[in-house]
């Protein structure tokens, strides 16, 4: 009887762990397929023109998405300008002083903001920027991305600063170092790699966003660096091309996908490797 129980327990153990292994295999299937498709379809459509040429009108083949690539950079840049100071400073506040009702509220609202679907951010940017200005613009896109990036940066900054042991702060304070210097030169410095990681991941995420740009920065088939004008972005281009009926555009959409993925994966992987997964858990 006991023997039976024992073997049953051993068997259950083995069986459950096997199931876990199977989960991994299942999860890896789409990843492999996506990679395969993107590389197979995207890589073949890529050439130098893709990076340097403007989109060609319907019907003409060739051309590229140079303006979209630049547009994505500008939009993300705009978003960063807006979100970095707010995100980092607020993050410091929450980590260093945030254990009161005000901090709790801000933290809660930051979480809310973090959870808000990106499309809603786009809607807000639309009502706040596009409606009054009466036209789509890079500004609107930048605002949407900025709003999107703020909570990520704030919370990662806070969480990472919190991983700095309290004892380190006390050590600094006990040396007669003022609190603000402690926060900046001990705590922030200790967690700097994590904070930068958080920023880069926020950037990567923003660069991959489509929804908030759909009706803020809209799109633009022409070269444009004016912030006041609609602006192209890689993601919106991919969307538009992908759902189009033209094979040529679909091929370009795959190429764009390939570029986007390479960019973003390189960005986040470098960061992740550099920080050796230390903060990965806090960054999602």
């Amino acid at each position, binding site marked *: 009887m006991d023997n039976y129980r024992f073997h049953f327990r*051993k068997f259950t*153990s083995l069986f*459950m*762990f096997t199931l*876990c292994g*199977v*989960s*991994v295999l299942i*999860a*890896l299937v*789409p990843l492999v397929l*996506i990679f395969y498709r993107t590389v197979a379809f995207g890589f073949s459509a890529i050439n130098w023109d893709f990076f340097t040429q403007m989109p060609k009108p319907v019907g003409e083949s060739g051309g590229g998405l140079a303006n979209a690539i630049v547009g994505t950079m500008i939009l993300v840049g705009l978003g*960063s300008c807006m979100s*970095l100071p*707010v995100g*980092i*400073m*607020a993050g410091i506040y929450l980590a*260093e002083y945030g254990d009161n009702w*005000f*901090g709790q509220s*801000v933290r*809660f*609202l*930051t979480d*809310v*903001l973090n*959870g*808000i*679907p990106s*499309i*809603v951010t*786009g*809607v*807000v940017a639309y009502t*706040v920027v596009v*409606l009054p200005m009466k036209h789509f613009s890079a500004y609107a896109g930048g605002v949407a991305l900025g709003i999107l990036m*703020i909570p990520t940066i704030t919370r990662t900054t806070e969480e990472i600063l919190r991983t700095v042991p309290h004892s380190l702060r006390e050590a600094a304070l006990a040396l007669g170092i003022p609190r603000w210097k402690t*926060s*900046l030169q001990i705590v*922030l410095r200790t967690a700097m790699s994590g*904070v*930068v990681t958080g*920023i*880069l991941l926020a950037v990567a995420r923003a*660069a*991959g966003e*489509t929804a908030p740009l759909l009706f803020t920065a*809209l799109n633009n088939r022409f070269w444009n660096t004016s912030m006041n004008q609609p602006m192209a972005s890689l993601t919106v281009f991919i969307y538009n091309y*992908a*759902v189009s009926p033209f094979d040529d555009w*679909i091929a370009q959409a795959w190429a764009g*996908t390939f570029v*986007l*993925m390479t960019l*973003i*994966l390189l960005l986040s*992987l470098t960061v992740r490797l550099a920080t050796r997964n230390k903060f990965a*858990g806090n960054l*999602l």
Partner: protein
Amino acid sequence: MVGHLLVRPLYFLQIMESIITAQHTFKASKGRLINPGDLIFKNLTRFFAALILVLVVLMAYEMIRTSALSWNKFGFNFFIRSVWDPVQDEYGALPFIYGTLVSSLLSIVIAVPLSLGIAVFLTEVAPRWLERPVSFFVEMLAGIPSIVYGVWGFFVMVPWLRSTVEPFISKHLGFIPLFRGAPYGVGMLAAGIILSIMILPIIASISRDVLKAVPRSQTEAALALGSTRWQATRIALAYSRSGIFGAVILGLGRAIGETMAVTMVIGNRPTISASLFEPGYTMASVLANEFTEATSEMYISALVEIALTLFIITIIINSFARLLMWSVTSNERAQKA
């Protein structure tokens, strides 16, 4: 590069420090002395924190203001009507709400067991040489932008569902209403699957982190009692249940708000159907599809009301998660005291 941006504000603060000579001391409210630099720094950061508060309030205000038109006209009926007729300016959001809920629940049902399996595999089974690359791949999944999933789903998964999976399922399980109907490929099932792929890495990697954070002594305690590895794992899972639950809620939030991938595979038809094979529509995808075309004020207002609804759902989910965490931690706190 970006680090540079960081250094600027810090540099500014350093200059500020030299302006404040440390000899001045400020009286805080309680009559105890406080360092002046601290006072300034604290208030400066507090200002930026307040900005976030203002931002959220502003967002809510903007949406409420813009959606007032629609609310005034339809009132609560907006949420239980199935009409969506821009021509007549008649709007009801029920199909979108239904589509959102069904697709995200479906994704949770698929993703949670798989994620937990992965998390357990990574923490308890995988040898180190395997753990690293597998977590790496799982995190890669998380890094892929949703448009990429959309494109892939649109061109690869949907055709496959249409030609292979859905016919197979309806042949064998067709007696269940869920699996009845023509195999369109696009539809709830496609949306659910693509969403589950997207939220899987989130749930899996947070769960893995939470499981990793379980003190070794917990599993060792179980093993030392003569438990099998699986029983010890169950102890670890129980230990980290609130964290895992948080991960699931987070995944749910993501699924509800996910736009592009869903838009590309759900079929975008505002109908309510029992079958998972039928096309549907979600709140996010209706916004993505129709906002640029919205011309009438009422149309925009109705769409903003949908955005507001999403916003409110997000707040509810977050509050719920927070309440849950709070009750867990305060429970522990009470027990410790």
